[in-house]
């Protein structure tokens, strides 16, 4: 049970007895942390290494330490994967769909959250309860009727089929609502006294104060949209609108089967999100932690 010798290190410095114990366990603690880190990193290292290897080497070196080191590094896989998969187009599709879904979602959901938290109107509490109840419906339960809807609207194989149904999100509305509810009212009162209407108060007082909420929702929304597979498999047919995950699913089975190319595709798809994550780590972690607030 040495795993659980944790607890507050800060108080450990106040208690000489405890701090002695924790320094005693420190090498073991690092060993365990390091081993787990290795397990987490090896698949990513394998992906990067594979992207730079001649195609045949990915499998030839697969079962030993050379799997993680490109001994004859080459950039061929990247150009080959880029051309064979039409990567540029897929990337553009993913960026358009994600950008529009996240951007429009932030506006629509935060405005409704504000109306629920701050504006006075009849039936508000009933509507709020309804929004909270809607959180429980998973997208998968709607996919089939939506497919029928999209077919009848003639929206199959379009960007809007991948964007419009995902803009309004009851969970994000609830997150915004909770955040706005906790804001102090004084600033809004001041704006009102100055003669600002609700829209201007919202734009110039509330939005600037709520950057953390916007960041959390943006990241949660981005992570789910960027990785979506089931819906675009149903709703898209062509490379013109298909996003990256579907592109990956198709590319990995495309003959001739070349694992180096596939790893290059995976790397090109992962690096942008990894960079964004490393820059905005804090917001990522807060965005994920915000999930637990749901209940």
């Amino acid at each position, binding site marked *: *049970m040495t795993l659980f010798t944790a607890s507050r290190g800060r108080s450990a410095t106040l208690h000489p007895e405890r701090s002695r114990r924790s320094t005693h366990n420190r090498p073991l603690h690092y060993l365990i942390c390091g081993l787990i880190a290795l397990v987490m990193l090896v698949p990513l290292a394998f992906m990067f290494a594979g992207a730079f290897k001649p195609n045949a080497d990915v499998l030839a070196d697969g079962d030993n330490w050379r799997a993680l080191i490109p001994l004859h590094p080459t950039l061929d896989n990247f150009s080959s994967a880029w051309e064979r998969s039409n990567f540029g187009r897929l990337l553009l599709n993913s960026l358009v769909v994600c950008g529009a879904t996240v951007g429009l979602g932030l506006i629509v959901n935060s405005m409704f959250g504000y109306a629920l938290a701050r504006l006075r109107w009849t039936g508000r509490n009933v509507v709020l309860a309804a929004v909270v109840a809607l959180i429980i419906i998973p997208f998968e339960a709607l996919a089939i009727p939506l497919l029928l809807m999209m077919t009848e609207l003639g929206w199959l194989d379009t960007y809007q089929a991948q964007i419009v149904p995902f803009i309004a999100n*009851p969970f994000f509305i609830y997150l915004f609502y909770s955040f706005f509810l906790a804001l102090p009212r004084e600033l809004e009162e001041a704006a009102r006294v100055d003669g600002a209407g609700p829209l201007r108060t919202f734009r110039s007082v509330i939005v600037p104060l709520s950057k953390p909420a916007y960041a959390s929702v943006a990241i949660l929304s981005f992570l789910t949209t960027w990785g979506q597979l089931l819906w675009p*498999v149903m709703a898209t047919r062509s490379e013109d609108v298909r996003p990256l*995950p579907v592109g990956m699913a198709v590319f990995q089975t495309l003959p001739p089967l070349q694992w180096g190319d596939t790893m290059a595709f995976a790397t090109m798809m992962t690096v942008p999100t990894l960079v964004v994550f490393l820059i905005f780590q804090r917001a990522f972690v807060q965005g994920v932690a915000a999930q637990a607030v749901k209940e």
Partner: protein
Amino acid sequence: MSHTTLASPAQGAEPPPTTAVPPRTTTKASRRGRLAAALFSAPAVLLLALFLIFPFVSAVVLSLTNQRLSSPLPVEFTGLENYQRIFTDPEFWRSFGNNTLFAVIVVPVQTAAALALAVLVNRRLPLRLFFRTVYFLPTVTVMAVAAVVWKVLLLPDSGLVNGVLGTLSFGHLQPGWLSSTSWAMPAIVLTSVWQGVGFQMVIFLAGLQAIPASLYEAARVDGANAWQQFRHVTLPGLRNTLVFVINVTAIFAFRLFDQVYMMPQFPGGPTDSTRTMMLQLLQTGYTRRMIGQASAIAVVFFLFVLVVTLVQRRLGREERAVR
């Protein structure tokens, strides 16, 4: 984080009383207020009605018909026939069984692993932030990428996993992973846990940080050792978080799709050993164009999610009552 105020939406619904807003006096002001509320709410309400409530109701209605995707045949009301059909379909039960198997492994394994990771990196040690970042990294790679990378890592003859296992077991343990009916599901479990555990670690970290340090002080004064502190302070303090994580993981287990679609040679293979309800949904509704029957699967799936969530709410509420 103001966890307590957010914990019960029903109570949070009543905003603190406002003194500045005059109660329904000037008709002009209140008309303006109502207009603003309508303006702020309309886009979201409209989109929710069209793309959430309407399809949800449609799913229930369609599940009682023989609706097909773009077919000239007339649509007829067929009652519970679709439900009868899926409940007597061995393929459906196979899927349900696979989802259940996946849940039975992943829920305890991933929850325990995430909790252990959170406790490990919650200590105030140098490098703790580095480890947190590393454990969270796989979450940032999308499942489609994780699936493809693990597919190669798990190749029976030339994969790194069997390379390591072979060395450790002197060549005795060489599972066939995705080409074996009994090892395909464990392969998918491995991929899923690797990709998902960091996400839950972060949720546990948030929960751990909400436990007051004074409780640990008190426990130490009473002479509690590390295990006793974990058992009597950490675990009770994490109860709501724990219930939440278990609920999310259980639902996630029944939404399993990306991995079983991309990792086996054919989706759900070999010989249906990784077929899941969501794959069944896709193949029934999209490939075979049987919207009615696929809607029945969707409704069954929703009822399952509903039950899991209600059980969780109940467990969570008990906790609140005790406090």
